[in-house]
């Protein structure tokens, strides 16, 4: 096959769709008003923000007054966790989360530990699934918040959020449940009210909106502090002049993501063929995470005897954009906390590879990866002093 460019890192970010950009353009042009201004120029901008919020609420199954725009998924996670933890200290200072959360959640929890909160980190099973029972087992009388991600960014496992929420509420309905849905959005049909969570965060750039826009759902009545103090925007819950163009873009992207859920089976098929092909062609390969509840495009494998960063660089030279959980791709000596938490040995975790397909990928992309990857793995193994040979 001829060399081609294959973008297989859709869990990292996605290209902005032309329809999204088109929806944003008016606010970069004539509709430049400040939504807080009372005159007509301001009201025009306000209408964009309002209509966007209404559209998003309609698609996600919540009330418009429950959805707040933020700058990114990380801000949403910070707001949800710190806002809920600090607003409920009169009831307790114990928080429950999992070992496989994104750093936006884990490092926020660590920051709260320094403030005197106590955090329990629940382990997944070997397939990467967090069971409702394991969450309930961590609950205490002074627990105020449970944070479990909807889908994992590395191994793609989709967690039983509805069941977890039901179990937590059955234990004590005052405990707030937050889910980081950044990876799930666009892969799973989300109806927030049916899901039952108190808070849900999302990000635009994972679903073909630009970087720099996110959102947070906060159920009416949930006690959560304001995170950004300011001029009364977002019903005084999140200050800062509204990012009108990006808000319009997020609304369009969420609308498209919902419509494009119809493509999920096709992407799942590509994913399954890719995994099958990799395992068939490359010995000493470990597949990470369950295939029963998994993001449509997520492939996570680990190849023994080689290191992920060098694999990523060689794939890049072949035109394939990918990701690894190797320590050398981060700035620490620790490989992926997610892989370690599901029992992948440290030395194997160094050789992990994540390929995340999206709806722009084709069967030819899968063919190309399957053609190129075995040679790259073999080349690095031939160079490796720990490779026992074919």
């Amino acid at each position: 096959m001829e060399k081609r460019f294959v973008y297989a890192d859709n869990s990292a970010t996605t290209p902005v769709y032309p329809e999204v950009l088109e929806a944003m353009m008016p606010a970069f042009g004539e509709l430049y008003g400040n939504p807080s201004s009372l005159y007509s120029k301001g009201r025009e901008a306000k209408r964009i923000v309002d209509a966007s919020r209404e559209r998003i609420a309609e698609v996600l199954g919540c009330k418009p007054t429950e959805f707040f725009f933020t700058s990114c998924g990380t801000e949403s996670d910070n707001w949800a966790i710190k806002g809920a933890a600090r607003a409920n200290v009169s009831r307790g200072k114990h928080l429950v989360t999992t070992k496989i959360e994104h750093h936006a959640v884990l490092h926020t929890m660590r920051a709260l530990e320094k403030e005197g909160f106590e955090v329990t980190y629940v382990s997944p099973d070997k397939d990467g699934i967090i069971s409702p029972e394991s969450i309930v087992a961590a609950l205490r009388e002074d627990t105020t918040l449970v944070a479990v991600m909807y889908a994992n960014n590395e191994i793609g496992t989709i967690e039983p959020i509805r069941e977890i929420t039901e179990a937590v509420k059955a234990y004590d309905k005052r405990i707030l449940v937050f889910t980081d849905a950044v990876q799930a959005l666009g892969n799973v049909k989300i109806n927030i009210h049916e899901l039952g969570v108190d808070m849900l965060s999302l990000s635009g750039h994972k679903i073909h909106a630009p970087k720099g826009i996110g959102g947070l759902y906060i159920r009416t009545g949930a006690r959560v502090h304001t995170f950004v103090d300011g001029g009364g925007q977002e019903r005084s819950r999140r200050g800062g002049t509204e990012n009108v163009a990006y808000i319009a873009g997020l609304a369009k992207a969420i609308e498209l993501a919902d419509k494009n859920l119809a493509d999920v089976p096709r992407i799942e098929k590509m994913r399954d063929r890719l995994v099958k092909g990799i395992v068939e062609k490359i010995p000493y390969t470990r597949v990470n995470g369950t295939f029963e509840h998994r993001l449509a495009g997520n492939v996570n494998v680990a190849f023994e005897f080689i290191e992920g960063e060098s694999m990523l660089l060689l794939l890049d030279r072949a035109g394939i954009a990918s990701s690894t959980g190797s320590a050398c791709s981060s700035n620490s000596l620790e490989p992926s906390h997610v892989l370690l938490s599901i029992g992948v040995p440290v030395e194997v975790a160094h050789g992990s590879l994540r390929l995340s397909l999206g709806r722009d990928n084709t069967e030819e992309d899968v063919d190309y990866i399957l053609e190129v990857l075995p040679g790259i793995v073999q080349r690095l193994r031939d160079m490796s002093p720990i490779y026992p040979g074919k």
Partner: protein
Amino acid sequence: MYSEKVMDHFSDPRNVGEIENADGIGEVGNAVCGDIMKIFLKIENDVIVDVKFKTFGCGAAIATSSMATEMIKGKKVSEALELTNKAVIEALDGLPPAKIHCSVLAEEAVKSAIANYYDNNGIKHNINVGCDGHCHSCGKHDA
């Protein structure tokens, strides 16, 4: 993040392989830390006439192995002992801060292979190899 030189030595590494009946073999690092370097030396009349390496590790680990072997090939053993990680970094036009330990490992791999050569030939030495294969024992990897 990587210089062109690093990418060149990573993409097209020099001296990959093993030497049968090598006069000196050195292995440093471990799989848990994510990098292992093994260097094989062929020595005649106190000169390194051939050198090969095998490395498990990131792009910088492979590039520093490649560069280090290039730098000691054809040199006297005593000269090769003078190789420093700094010299390897300079020859590669720099390394990102988090990758400095790779160059340390390359220096140690060379020293370890030479120490092995001395041991095999009953030559007394006091070469400090550095890495003993146990992470965090040397404190050098906290870059």
